[in-house]
């Protein structure tokens, strides 16, 4: 008790407030309801990139979506979104040997910033990246 008392009395320890920062927020953002299958795991809550009206797109192997193709990963969301489907290349390095080689990637990356209602049924603000 002595050590704990010393810490508590020193002013070095303060209890976290629920609204101090995002790390201490109790509610978490929830996923959109739409799901599609994956080759090796359970279905995931995600639309492939493409026009928001759900029309056919080369970037979406699951065809058309009359309900619309929501680019947000988060439901109960209102805000701005950016979405890309990109292929690109560059230089890769084996950091043990120093060997270098050309390397290519494909990415579906997005951002979301705005308000959402989280799992705590409360409205929050936040910014998110889908990587």
């Amino acid at each position: 008790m002595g050590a704990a008392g010393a810490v508590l009395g020193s002013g070095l320890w303060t209890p976290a407030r629920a609204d101090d920062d995002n790390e201490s927020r109790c509610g978490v953002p929830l996923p959109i309801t739409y799901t599609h299958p994956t080759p090796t795991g359970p279905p995931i809550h995600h639309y492939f990139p493409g026009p928001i009206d759900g029309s056919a797109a080369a970037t979406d192997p699951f065809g058309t979506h009359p309900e619309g193709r929501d680019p947000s990963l988060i439901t109960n969301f209102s805000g701005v979104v950016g979405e890309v489907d990109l292929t690109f290349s560059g230089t890769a390095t084996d950091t043990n040997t120093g060997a270098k080689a050309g390397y290519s990637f494909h990415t579906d990356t997005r951002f979301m910033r705005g308000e959402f209602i989280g799992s705590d049924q409360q409205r929050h603000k936040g910014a998110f990246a889908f990587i």
Partner: protein
Amino acid sequence: MSPLGPHSYDPGIAPSLLVWTIEIPEGSIEIDLNNAEATLHLENVCRVFDAFTVPNSFDTHHPLGLVSAVIESLSIHWTGISKTLSFSNGKTFRGDFIQSVAAPISVTVSTPSTTPPFTPAAQDGFEFVADPATTVTNFAQIGQEHNGSLF
């Protein structure tokens, strides 16, 4: 297949089932819809894994292993107007979006060298630096939307 092996970066799936999504500082995003421009800029993102392949990421057993990696920097810049599109399904989703002409990406990412049990066999470390000039924009859009109970 590169002689440096497969690499695939994502933050994993949250207990809420939110897919590959992390919270970021609000200042990481700049967006100007009037000028059809936006930028996402991230640095030192260590809440990502190298899952090596997408199927391995989705497999809850991760047979190829799963190790923490670092996105040292990532920037994407959306520019231009290819098309504008508004849509509402009347119930759960509506939005107004600008399909961009291009969205070049700059990214530097690294994976440390690994040993079992984090990967089935020891693997050398890996670093990748993208050349933004090689970016092929298959699809890009920015806009605003409302979904779910905030429809």
